[in-house]
């Protein structure tokens, strides 16, 4: 039994029990897993899972393309259920941060994370907690988000042409090492961007990935440039995601006393780390916010005439998940607008998968808009578009949260400048 910490002080919103919150999120994870069977037979999914588990998984490897659609959904749902199980086992509260982690894992399980490449990293974080003689619960977010470096394990295992036994050994050793290194680095790096980059582990994983890639390159090992993305399923996916997000809004509405109350308050939050909307405004209204963000993500892809595929659905899932931990339409839209404007003036096509991912994942910088206003948010998005297209080389696609690395750089550069030109009294 996990005690719900909200009830100690929450007086203005309905408190939902931890059991109920776990059940709701687990049901959504299960529905993603089962959605896989709408597209493929169990045997096809089994074969597809084999391809997923043995792929190098570096950016951009769409599991819908290299395996099949059913396997990608199955893998996504399975990874979310495992993440929920790990959180439950460590007695974590199903609050905004865990919800964000679960859906981020689900999103990236469409294009990079799988059961094989995340185990050693999570085990490494667990080992770190044992070495420090601290509760694993203190590091649960790092254990979950740290799986961003899954491709590091897969690439060493399958991508460098090593004998398979050696690849498995070295790959998992690298994963374990990464897991042990991440906690102290994540704690330290958060100061770099002052909490204005929501994907803190993404930034940390980017730095770790950069170190690994530099070492690989010094031994003549290079990761290939991968661009395996599926297309042509927009209508089917739009219907599926539409039902998914509409149900989220409906469930949230019901759990929020059949109302949209507190949504305005939620959207007034700047969203900077740590902004747990579940404890601040309640679980029901947070679900509504998540549904709105997810739906807007789908609309954006359609507006720019892009493709719904593994990576872009992953981006939408992540944006929706962080609707519980810092993002809402009010602070996310300016950043997306900034990315959109950048595509109009710069080299990249607005409907390319890379540009769409920059818009969706670029909302990691939403707190800049939340704190400094629309113009700053647009500027952040505009800069992010250029930076994100340049940092991928550093880690050679080993860090799935490429936008987190870019977001950290943009936030760390922009925030001190914006702070310097603010009225002193405007600080909270």
């Amino acid at each position, binding site marked *: 039994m996990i005690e719900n910490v909200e009830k100690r*002080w929450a007086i203005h919103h309905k408190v939902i029990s931890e059991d109920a919150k776990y059940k709701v999120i687990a049901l959504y994870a299960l529905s993603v897993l089962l959605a896989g069977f709408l597209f493929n037979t169990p045997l096809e999914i089994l074969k597809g899972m084999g391809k997923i588990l043995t792929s190098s998984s570096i950016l951009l490897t769409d599991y819908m393309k290299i395996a099949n659609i059913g396997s990608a959904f199955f893998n996504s749902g399975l990874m979310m259920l495992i993440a929920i199980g790990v959180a439950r086992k460590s007695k974590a509260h199903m609050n905004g941060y865990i919800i964000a982690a679960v859906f981020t894992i689900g999103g990236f399980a469409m294009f990079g994370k799988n059961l094989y490449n995340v185990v050693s990293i999570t085990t490494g974080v667990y080992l770190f907690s044992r070495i420090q003689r601290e509760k694993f619960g*203190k590091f649960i977010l790092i254990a979950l988000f740290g799986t961003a470096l899954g491709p590091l394990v897969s690439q060493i295992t399958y991508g460098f042409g090593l004998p398979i036994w050696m690849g498995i050994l070295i790959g998992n050793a690298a994963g374990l090492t990464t897991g042990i290194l991440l*906690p102290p680095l994540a704690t330290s790096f958060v100061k770099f961007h*002052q909490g204005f980059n929501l994907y*803190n582990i993404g930034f940390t994983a980017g730095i770790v990935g950069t170190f690994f890639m530099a070492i690989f390159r010094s031994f003549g090992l290079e990761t290939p440039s991968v661009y395996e993305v599926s297309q042509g399923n927009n209508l089917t996916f739009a219907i599926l995601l539409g039902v998914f997000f509409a149900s989220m809004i409906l469930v949230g509405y019901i759990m929020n006393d059949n109302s949209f109350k507190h949504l305005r308050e939620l959207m007034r939050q700047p969203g900077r780390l*740590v902004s*747990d909307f579940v404890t601040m405004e309640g679980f029901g209204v947070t679900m509504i916010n998540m549904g709105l963000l997810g739906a807007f993500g789908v609309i954006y892809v359609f507006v720019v005439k892009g493709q719904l595929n593994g990576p872009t659905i992953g981006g939408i899932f992540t944006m929706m998940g962080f609707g519980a931990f810092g993002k809402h339409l009010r602070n996310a839209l300016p950043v997306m607008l900034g990315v959109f404007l950048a595509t109009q003036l710069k080299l990249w096509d607005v409907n390319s998968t890379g540009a769409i991912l920059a818009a969706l994942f670029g909302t990691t910088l939403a707190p800049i808009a939340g704190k400094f206003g629309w113009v700053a948010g647009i500027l952040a998005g505009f800069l992010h578009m250029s930076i994100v297209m340049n940092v991928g080389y550093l880690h050679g696609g080993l860090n799935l949260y490429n936008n987190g690395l870019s977001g950290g750089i943009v936030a760390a550069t922009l925030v001190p400048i914006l702070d310097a030109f603010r009225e002193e009294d405007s600080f*909270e």
Partner: protein
Amino acid sequence: MSKEQAKVVYIMSELVRVFFKMGINNIQVDIKNNALESTVELTGDVKLIPISKIAHLRESIHGARQLELEEYWKLAGGNLHSELDLVGALVDEAEVEHDGDTLRVRVIRKA
């Protein structure tokens, strides 16, 4: 200095920032630290203070520890922006009192 003591410094720093923001410039800080728990208590002279500010303080520094947010402890007190909610997640107990002349905030963090 142990990591636990470092966390106490960050929590204290964030609370001092809150007091300054409320216009309280005469602050007494009392810290007790042992192997089991740490207590940070701040008192400051302030006569007029809006009730809404006290309510906001109470709601933010709620004293309901959330271990999962431990990763972010270095954000507390470390920059120009408020991290009161984080302080709330880092402590096990919290009291906020204003008796008309003095504001007192006391937080307890168990090791």
